[in-house]
């Protein structure tokens, strides 16, 4: 299935991507599986998702946990804890 992924703030800088359109293998159906899939891209991706830093995820503009299901056409976003206000 095909999804859009957005990256924000320090995460955007660490992977050097702000957005991408990605075709996922059929076994990638959750946020955890997507993180594992992206970690295969190289060291900076693996470091991002190795659990040592907090990476929040949203699907279609709603904050979700790692068990959340991903569906075709979803907009998935990865970002650090928020610091506005």
């Amino acid at each position, binding site marked *: 299935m095909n999804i859009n992924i*957005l990256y*924000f*703030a*320090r995460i955007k800088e660490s992977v050097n991507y702000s957005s991408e359109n990605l075709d996922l293998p059929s076994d990638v159906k959750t946020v955890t599986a997507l993180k594992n899939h992206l970690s295969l891209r190289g060291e900076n991706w693996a470091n991002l998702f190795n659990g040592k830093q*907090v990476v929040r995820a*949203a699907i279609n*503009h*709603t*904050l979700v946990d790692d068990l959340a299901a991903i569906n075709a056409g979803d907009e998935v*976003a990865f*970002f*650090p*804890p*928020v*610091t*506005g*206000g």
Partner: protein
Amino acid sequence: MRLAEHANQDVANNASNIGALVSFVGQVRDMNDGDSINTLTLEHYPEMTEKALLGIESEAKNRWDIIGSLIIHRVGTLKPLDQIVLVAVTSAHRGEAFKACEFIMDYLKTSAPFWKKESTNQGERWVDAKLSDDAAKARWK
């Protein structure tokens, strides 16, 4: 300069049932963690920000008897003394507006997708989220 803004009702209206208007303005400090701040740049996730602010205002309206609310949050590059955020709430009596205004700020700081990056004489750095902000939010559970 762009703005992320949401209002559930015009707080400046002249409804005669309004007895209180409470507002909060946050502004850029010139020092943070011992370093002087030259500029502060705010990034956001526009569609999710809009949804988050709408949700926070709606929750404030469920919890307190407020009449209107307004949130304006700036994004882009700011300098010390610039205003970052405005929250304004109206109600019949002050207690509800004070509480709702503080609630909206506490939730905004921990739930709305904005990120701050500081530029100091030592270079640029992303601001880390603070545990004290999580604690401030947890008071409202």
